[in-house]
């Protein structure tokens, strides 16, 4: 295994910065994530997918916001730091599960 590959492997295993969910919640609103994904990260089929209870890895998360493949505006490192991304990621992970659909009478068929 070359040194280069070893380095890559080490980088991939680098833990995400420790995120603060409260700070992330504020950032989620402040920098516009809520605009497409909703304030509860509930998503909208018209604007952006649900992020609540939609787990992806931090690496994938950061990679996507930096270079989105779809319509999402890119959040480059110039405007959102790695730490801020980690805070937002922590906020998303902290969101509670929604109530069971069966428990909501209005959503019964």
């Amino acid at each position: 295994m070359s040194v280069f590959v070893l380095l890559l492997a080490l980088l991939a295993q680098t833990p995400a910065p420790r995120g603060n969910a409260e700070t992330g919640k504020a950032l989620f609103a402040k920098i516009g994530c809520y605009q497409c994904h909703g304030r509860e990260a509930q998503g909208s089929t018209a604007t952006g997918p649900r992020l609540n209870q939609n787990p992806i890895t931090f690496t994938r998360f950061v990679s996507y916001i930096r270079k989105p493949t779809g319509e999402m505006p890119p959040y480059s490192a110039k405007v959102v730091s790695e730490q801020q991304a980690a805070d937002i990621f922590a906020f998303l992970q902290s969101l509670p599960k929604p109530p069971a659909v069966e428990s909501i009478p209005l959503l019964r068929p």
Partner: protein
Amino acid sequence: MAKPRKFSPTRRNFLKGAAVAGAASLTPPIAPIASATVRKPETVTPLQDARAETAVPPEVDVLTTDHCGSDFMVDVLRSLDIEYVCANPGSSFRALHESVVNYGGNQKPEFITCCHEESSVGMAHGYSKIEGKPLGVLAHGTVGLQHAAMAVYNAYCDRVPIFIIVGNTIDATMRRPGVEWMHSVQDAASIVRDFIKWDDTPISLQHFAESAARAYKITMTPPMEPVLIVADSELQERPLAEKDKLRLQRVTRTAPPQGDSGAVAEAAKLLVAAQTPVIIADRAARTAAGMKYLVELAEALQAPVIDQGGRMNFPSRHPLNQSGRGRGLIADADVILGLELTDFWGSVNAYRDQLERGSRRLTKTGAKLISITAGDLYMKSNYQDFERYPEVDIAMAADAEATLPALTEAVKRLITADHKNAFQTRGSKLASAHQAALEQSRLDATYGWDASPITTARMFAEVWAQIKNEDWSLVSSSQTNWASRLWNFDKYHRFIGGSGGAGVGYGAPAAVGAALANKKYGRLTVNIQNDGDLMYAPGVLWTAAHHRIPLLSVMHNNRAYHQEVMHLQRMANRHNRGIERASIGTTIEDPNIDYSKLAQSMGLYAEGPVTDPKDLGPAIKRAIAAVKRGEPALVDVVTQPR
């Protein structure tokens, strides 16, 4: 709008010599129109001159008449079955206004008082979507039509019939000094000619009758578009003589164009042979029959239908309704039938709004595209609502609704027993996918269920709970698709599509106009009202209250022009700067608008702002009770953005 008026008592004294002094009030003379047109240029009396009001009139003056040209114009409107005329009052059509309310008794047409010409046309737009025929709009040929222009453009893009009459004083010597000159124009229709289908400036009453009949016929022929007639003020106000010589025109509706029989047969062949056909419908169903025809075709083929929502094309709970799976189905399709698509190219291509703009075709190689649209029969060049050029394999310049029965028959003739088995298998898979999508929608709606601001899913679920047992009619298009995901759209009047041109300010007046049309059918008209849209011309709420138009408006109040919030965010991100300032210039906060007070001030029953989702259901229930009493009602709901 207030239009200052000046009064010149000598303006209409053109019947000099036609009657003897003192006889006018007893036996009003009616001069032949021909003699009325022979006039000497007037000496205009300055308004400031008190003598104009107090001087003894010349002996030969005739100051009254029992009938005028605009009485005949009312007869014309009545012959065209125009039920209402929406207008903000204006002096250039004052005679026609007076004829509507007095000569016509304010019935068919009834005068609907609007606070803005954009509201008049918006109301006409919504009315047409329910009633399938035009409503009349009266406006000044200048300032009124300028106000109306955006709404006319929406109607044009949405292929909606509207009958516009504008007042104008063509003869310069007949204009009062001052404002009437500002309110006169050489070519009144010019400002909207790019986005109406036809216009005329009649110079006689018979000409008016013929042009009105022609305009009606044209506006009602697909592709339906607004039309405009100029009503010269002299023609309106001149005494009506020899009425017996005037003739109302019989209007025979033009049968809408049907697809060429060879093209229909070829399309049927492709559709029956297809393994993965897809039907996309936008403005396909002009009437309830159109919806039925589309169901018949889809069921014959067991083909999925993607309803783009320009009209109420296809029942939302039909197992073949696959509107939420559009892109995947299109990517897998071998034959795509597009029915009255606004944007066929955009339906089969993905376009990416990033710094480097790009597009990619969604369809697989060899997929056949069939288009049926009356849009191919009529297109103008300046405004670009025709969208990007689509490369299709069969193009029928025809009305989709008129063509569907023949296409379905041709399809049925080609279906063999083997086809039927394959189609049934396809249909079963689609039914399962439909059911899964429905369940997914319910699951998705749970996220943020108790949040404040209230999620749009919760709002739509709360409204649905209160209306589902009524004969409801949703008359607004939403920025979300929660209605189609959670509600059961099973009849044509359940939905009327959108604005067409995406001109903001359409929602509120169109809802009031649609509610006006729904009133006689006793339907519960429901409007999900965007906040930014309402603020363009909120006076239409007063119109609804004044005319006792029952309408439930539930505010989707996200306190922003949210589409623009997202656009600004996109630009800020793209430019690597200021990504926290997308709210500047795009939000409607500080102060927050109290829409319930706004509505109450104009005579509506209103509640809100509702911020706790638990309060929403009861508030909607109380508002519906008001609507059932015949009133408009509004519930202001503070919501999530989308």
